[in-house]
């Protein structure tokens, strides 16, 4: 295992030791939604399997933009606790939506269209990195990347504020984060991680109360972990 990335791994709070990447993080160690696909309807099976098996090619972003967005998404939704084979690709699905011109039904009046939001935001990330550290965003260490992103999240972007005059920082952050989260949590690996039963037609659910698992679901087996920077959720 490549230990050079140990500083990016979540930490066991009891020992202070980094937890090595695994195929399936989360509290449902043997639960695999895809093992149930024979019980799904054909249309659902096709949509979910296509998502897993056919990762779209990058057609909207330039190679440099795709690399930069991947660095951003790696901070918005870090996957360093997953082994290489079980990481969930995010940039290709956002690229596909932007390339196909599919919108989500509205834009805020002070915001440009989605393709422009992405292009302008990526340029702004690099400009901020250059102004603050004389490096491009991808070359920064993760704490520097996080500081830039947190300042945008708070609506008080670091550096020259003029570059955010036509690009409302909080809304830009929310758009990127929502796109990343909607892609991550649409993947069966993420459903395994959080113990979500997934598609349930035509079989349905029968154990509706007390959070009980179906016979084919798994009970929760919790373990303690904190993010590598030690600043995790309170529980």
């Amino acid at each position, binding site marked *: 295992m490549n230990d050079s990335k140990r500083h990016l791994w979540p930490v066991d709070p009891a020992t202070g030791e980094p937890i090595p990447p695994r195929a399936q993080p*989360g509290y449902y160690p043997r639960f695999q939604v895809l093992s149930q696909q*024979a*019980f799904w*309807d*054909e*249309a*659902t099976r096709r*949509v*979910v399997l296509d*998502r897993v098996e056919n990762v779209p090619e990058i057609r909207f972003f330039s190679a440099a933009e795709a690399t930069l967005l991947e660095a951003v998404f790696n901070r*918005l*939704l*870090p996957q360093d*606790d997953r082994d290489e084979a079980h990481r969930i690709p995010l940039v290709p699905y956002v690229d596909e939506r932007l390339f196909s011109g*599919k*919108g*989500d*039904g*509205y*834009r*805020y*009046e002070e915001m440009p269209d989605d393709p422009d939001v992405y292009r302008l935001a990526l340029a702004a990330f690099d400009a901020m990195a250059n102004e603050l550290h004389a490096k491009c965003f991808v070359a920064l260490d993760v704490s520097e990347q996080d500081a830039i*992103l947190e300042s945008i*999240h708070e609506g008080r972007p670091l550096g020259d504020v003029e570059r955010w005059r036509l690009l409302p920082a909080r809304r830009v952050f*929310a758009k990127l*984060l*929502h796109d990343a*989260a*909607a*892609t*991550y*949590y*649409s993947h069966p690996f*993420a459903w395994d*991680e*959080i*113990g*979500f*039963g*997934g*598609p*349930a*037609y*035509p*079989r*349905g*659910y*029968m154990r*509706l109360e*007390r*959070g*009980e*698992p179906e016979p*084919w679901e798994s009970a929760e087996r919790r373990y303690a*972990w904190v*993010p*590598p920077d030690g600043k*995790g*959720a309170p*529980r």
Partner: protein
Amino acid sequence: MKTPLGGAFEGPSDDAHGLGPMQQLTRPMRRYPPSEIADYVIVGVGSAGGVLLQRLARAGFRVIGIEAGPFWDTERDWVSDEKGSESLYWNEPRVTGGRHPLALGENNSGRGVGGGSVHWAAFTPRFHPSDFQIHTLDGVGVDWPMSYWELKPYYELLEMEMPVAGPARYPWGDPHGYPYGPHPMGAVGNALIRGCTKLGIGVSIGGPVAILSGSRGNRPHCIYRGFCIQACKVGAKASTLITHVPDALRSGAEIRDRCLAARVNVGADGRVSGVTYIDPQGREVEQKARAVIVSGYAIETPRLLLNSACARHPDGLANSSGTVGKYLMAQAGNVILGRFDEPVRMYKAPPAHALTEEFYETDPKRDFARGFAIQTVGPLPIAFAKQMTTAKKAWGWRLRQVMMDYNHWAALGLLGEILPWEDNTVSLATERDRHGLPVAHVTFNLHDNDLKLIEFGKNKVMEVMEAAGAEEVVQEPRYAHLVGGARMGFDPRTSVVDKFGRTHDVPNLFICDGSILPTQGSANPGLTIQALAARTADYLIAQGTDVFQTNKRPLDAPRVRRDLSPPEALGHGVPRLK
């Protein structure tokens, strides 16, 4: 066991049009030749349009529905998957703004035959009698040009036609019972019961929801799979696609799907002459009609009227009052999320399965008018993740960590009445859609009463969640539903249509959908929209050819046509006890 007995489920194999696993459209649809003048063209085959199409066709009129979205085959087109259900929503461009901009798209806008009733959660409470006269009672908003009692027979009819499952006695508003028994509880409903019971608040469990608690004819009962708002593949949740459209087609109606209405045309006599739409190949087609009903919902209806401006109607069709697009309303829909030590698994059971209307009416002890409901909601992982980015400001590892606790969270929704304000509007944006038509620009602002109501209501729901035993309670502000924008009223100077949906300006142009609601109460609007559609249909049928030939505007209530329900609605459920 990794495979089902008898092999994997492949769905139906023949070529019939599937509406759920048991219901199919077998006979080909009637097609009117382009040269034929229809009696009625209905723009939008959604909650209202589906009911109108069915009633008018059954009464023998030649009716054509123009629908922007597709005519769904539920086995082929719908999936048990959040991301895979994006095509159910109105995803064409719109602009949103104001001090409190509304999220549109998946939040509140349907597209396709069945419209919003395809992806509603299907809570179907009636409005209260007080909702029809809040200006008289509370000095706010405006009174309706009709009373609850005029609409009541249609509430009863639609509760049978959908049908609605719920308790035998529903205590709020005008007390009544439901024709199908209540649903079993999911874990979120149990949390609502625990919290309310501890605080001495009454709860309605297992409904009212338009979801089958027992099989009916060619529709199976609910299987509690939790994907209600991703469209019900089971066919247990009512949508006009499966409740009214099949009978409309049997009765000779035509639906032209994937056709976007561009404008309503006005003849030299000042009456509307038909509708021009963009067909699936991108061509402009004119369909002539003796009368037109616009049922495009609260954004597309005002947009179509404004886009239909002509020499005779320079500010938009039927807009001599300047009211088209104004008094748009959404309900406060804050989501209150509570984390419990024990698992919840809120993805099981319909999101809608328990509620309380204990706080619905104006309470003089509070510092605002009107009130709110508290309802169960059951966000699936993507919706929940988005809520957590706001409610807990979570991103990065913190979001991953919170999401690993998805199965420990329960979600309740505030449903609060926001009053009608003139500055909440649908207008035309400068930008255009792919057909060159100006898109809608939605502006939304909360006012003092709304802000006080939301603050009080949000805190009350958080109190209920804490009383239920949640160890951590957070909330996300948001808005649910859309109504108004072409409101009904007595006075042609301050409203767009009369109480039957006839525009004050054009005698053979009608509007029937959520846009005509003058106020909205704190009840989900779907049932009321369908009930209004059945009532407008009875009115039009009673008027007969007068609508096509005269400019008369009688306002007498029509006879209630209980004989025009879809036949499969009759002979099931609990008989209504007087």
